């Protein structure tokens, strides 16, 4: 789907009153919107490259807290969830329990409501009062500069990091397209747990859509002999351990993680483990849409991490030197 189709798909999920309030806004606002936020009883809000905006329902908008902005009702939020799930909420139960819904072939909407738990696990989510509809951007060429810088002399283990809305998923989709197409034709496997990367186009590419990352990575390695595996949003220590385990098998990884700055690479456990394993060659910081990315050398970050923590005996997920050696041997080209 192109950007206009993505936007149309997102708008189609909204109740008529709210859709109208957005459609009447100036085109440059509508087309650059990245998120539509609905909260029962609170003003409708849009987020994009322009920051925040509150539509007034008559084609105008405000950046301050508004008086006239349409306020979604609980009923309208429920209708939106219905539309996002194609009127089949039950078929998205697992996603809802994980806090999101995938709609229109790969776009994601966050949902928040009242969770029912059993044995510490979320069993159902009801009374959904907040929905954040994200509008994906498929930008062919988004990763062109990055690919030239990072992959021109061969595949490298790479971590993309940035704050939410910095374009990590967009970049990852384009990297998948570039690496799996002419002239590279690498065997690309995509462990797409949240179904956000399945819109990526490419020639030599296999999608493990909806598989938990651990399984997606394992199945890809067992049966598809990929040159490189792409994963979006490595978030848990379990995911991280699986990647570290797979790195020892010689396959390359391109990952994305939530991390707001270079400094946070050393403070977030998952990011720190990726730095400290010594296997990642490049760490790419995405500062936000339209801004140039920064590329850090993995070896330099690794040395810094060792200086900062290891000499003081503070270890992360990477437990010991022997393990680090294995990762380093398997990962660094």
């Amino acid at each position: 789907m192109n950007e206009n189709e993505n936007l149309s798909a997102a708008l189609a999920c909204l109740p008529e009153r709210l859709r109208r309030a957005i459609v009447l806004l100036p085109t440059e606002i509508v087309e650059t919107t990245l998120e539509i936020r609905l909260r029962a009883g609170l003003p409708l809000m849009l987020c994009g490259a322009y920051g925040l905006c509150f539509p007034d329902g008559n084609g105008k908008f405000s950046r301050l807290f508004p008086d006239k902005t349409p306020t979604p009702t609980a009923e309208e939020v429920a209708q939106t969830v219905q539309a996002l799930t194609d009127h089949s909420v039950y078929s998205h139960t697992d996603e809802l329990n994980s806090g999101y819904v995938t709609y229109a072939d790969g776009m994601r909407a966050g949902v928040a409501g009242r969770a029912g738990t059993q044995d510490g696990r979320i069993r159902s989510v009801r009374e959904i009062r907040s929905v954040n509809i994200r509008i994906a951007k498929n930008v062919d060429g988004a990763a062109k500069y990055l690919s030239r810088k990072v992959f021109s002399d061969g595949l490298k283990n790479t971590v993309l990091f940035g704050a939410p809305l910095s374009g990590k998923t967009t970049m990852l989709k384009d990297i998948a397209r570039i690496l799996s197409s002419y002239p590279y034709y690498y065997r690309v496997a995509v462990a797409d747990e949240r179904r956000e990367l399945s819109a990526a186009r490419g020639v030599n590419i296999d999608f493990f859509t909806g598989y938990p990352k651990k399984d997606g990575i394992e199945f890809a390695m067992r049966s598809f002999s990929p040159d490189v595996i792409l994963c979006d949003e490595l978030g848990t220590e379990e995911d991280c351990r699986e990647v570290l385990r797979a790195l020892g098998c010689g396959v390359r990884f391109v990952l994305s993680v939530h991390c707001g700055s270079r400094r946070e690479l050393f403070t977030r456990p998952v990011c720190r483990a990726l730095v400290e394993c010594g296997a990642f060659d490049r760490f790419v910081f995405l500062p936000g849409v339209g801004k140039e990315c920064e590329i850090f050398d993995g070896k330099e970050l690794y040395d810094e991490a060792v200086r900062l923590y290891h000499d003081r005996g503070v270890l992360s997920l990477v437990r010991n030197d022997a393990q680090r050696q294995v990762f380093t041997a398997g990962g660094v080209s």
Partner: protein
Amino acid sequence: MEFLDAALELIGLMETRMTCFLEPLDSLLRVLRSESPLMKNAAGDSFFAAWRSVFSAERSGVRESDRRILLAFGDSLGDTDIDGQKALCESARERLRAALENAREEKQRFARLGALLPVFAGAAVIILLI
């Protein structure tokens, strides 16, 4: 009774597809059109339109109350998670089973009456002749 049997079978099929395959309603409609005699000629693009087209039309030998159970069942589908869908299917099935049971009892009563009718008629003729 044939209608109720077919409706029960239809609900069983829907429950399986929804709970085991997590089939969304639109693709479920495609399955139902090919596998259920009741839904074979369902008109309409969406599941809800197709369902209404089948069960809102009057049919000979089908009670209004039974059709209403099915219409309400169709309208409430898709709003809840899997547990909710299972509960809806079970509730509709229970009500249709009760209706089926009633229909069977009525049929047996009429069948008994039907068997006694010639006896009564014969007795009436004899009385008249006397």
